[in-house]
């Protein structure tokens, strides 16, 4: 997959249904087979992005927690600072990747 250009849609801090709307807007002018990843801190997005993909004939490729922006060698920091995927407001960031259908 590393040879494919992946479009990243950053929808962090946006509440439902905005992450899905941002993703759909980014997908509008793309070709079938294109791959897009949306980043979201909204708990509904990891249910609603797959539902949107199903309704539009797209395929969910992957759904994962984004590892935190922890600098290497940060061992010994307290758990809060190294909590993977955490944003400043404490939410988890999910990365959901879809491949557009025909």
């Amino acid at each position, binding site marked *: 997959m590393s040879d494919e250009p992946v479009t990243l849609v950053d929808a962090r801090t946006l509440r*439902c*249904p905005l992450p899905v*709307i941002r993703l759909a807007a980014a997908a509008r002018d793309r070709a079938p087979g294109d791959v897009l990843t949306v980043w979201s801190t909204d708990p509904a997005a990891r249910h609603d992005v797959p*539902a949107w993909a199903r*309704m539009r004939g797209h395929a969910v490729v992957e759904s994962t927690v984004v590892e935190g922006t922890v600098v290497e060698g940060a061992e010994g920091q307290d758990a809060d600072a190294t909590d993977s995927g955490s944003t400043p407001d404490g939410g988890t960031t999910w990365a959901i990747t879809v491949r557009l259908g025909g």
Partner: protein
Amino acid sequence: MTDTTTPPRRVYLDNGGRAALHPLARTALAQAIDDGWADPRRLYAEARRAAVLLDGAREAIAAGLGARTEEVHLAPSHVAALHAAVGAVALGRRRTGPGIVVSAVERAAVLHAAELAVATAGSPDALVKVPVDTLGRVDEAAMTEAVASPGTALAALQVANGEVGTVQPVAAVHAAARRAGVPLVVDAGAVVGHGEVPDAWDLLAADPADWGGPAGVGVLAVRNRVRWRRTWPEDAEPWFPGGVSVPAAFAAAVALQSVLADRAAQDTRRRAIVDKVRAVVGQIPDVEVVGDPDDRLPHVVTFSFLFVDGEALVTELDRAGFAVGSGSACTSSTLEPSHVLAAMGVLTHGNVRIALDRATTQDDVDRFLAVLPGAVARVRASLGVSGL
């Protein structure tokens, strides 16, 4: 001066878990406040009058549920009934093991009580949530297998899901639980007064506020064979310390008798309205009408609109005179979407649930259906999603 502007009549379409008070319940409540205000446990005429009303209420509720009177315990709420049922059976059967098996779409009260029970037992991983299909029906094979696994203290399954209406395979799961000697807690909260309650339970919880009784009373029926142990202090009332409001219990029983008497006629009438709602709403662009289309509650219908903010839609409909429910995250303080819609894998945003009362007319619903497409379009326009 004559008032020429009549405000449009409010239409209440959120009769799930908190239905409008049944007219006969209102009459019974007023009567029971006059006759049954005293503490039924005391030793004088006023108390005996209250005790007669309370005994009568328990007897009538038991008859309506297909239980024996001594099996029926009155709780302060449906949530309290479910909490007590799950917690007390888990503790009573702790020697068997800590395991609890539930469907993933049980009411939050069941899930939370089960989480607390396994955590208290020191085995937080002993809670098994059995998945559902896209219609919301639990995987029967997986659940019957899970209840038979060693170390299972209890299982819980609803008769039907109150959010999406889908009926669950309670009889089959109860048969499997019986073979394994595992008690089954059955949540009939969305069903009593509306649908068939199978005689397939060890503990049965029912919700008067759902069938037109007053809020402030719940029902838990417990078969005599069930082993349980209270997780609360001792009281003269073994299951629900302090007893319940006699007028509320009496009114709940009167409402139950009434709704059971016209259930068949209301089933046909409300099913026809729901079928029409499903057909008409299905024509609105980018909508998912969810739940089983046939094997379902007669009065509940749920749908989700793509690219719609659920809170904005509920507010828009409220402004137009219609009260509806929603399982969308945007309508909850926690930002967590409905665990039921999430478990089904259907759209959780833009969700609307309507639950029809006996007093809801075809005309009420037709007016709602006339207003709904415009309300959806306005919310979508405000989010700038046309053409997506």
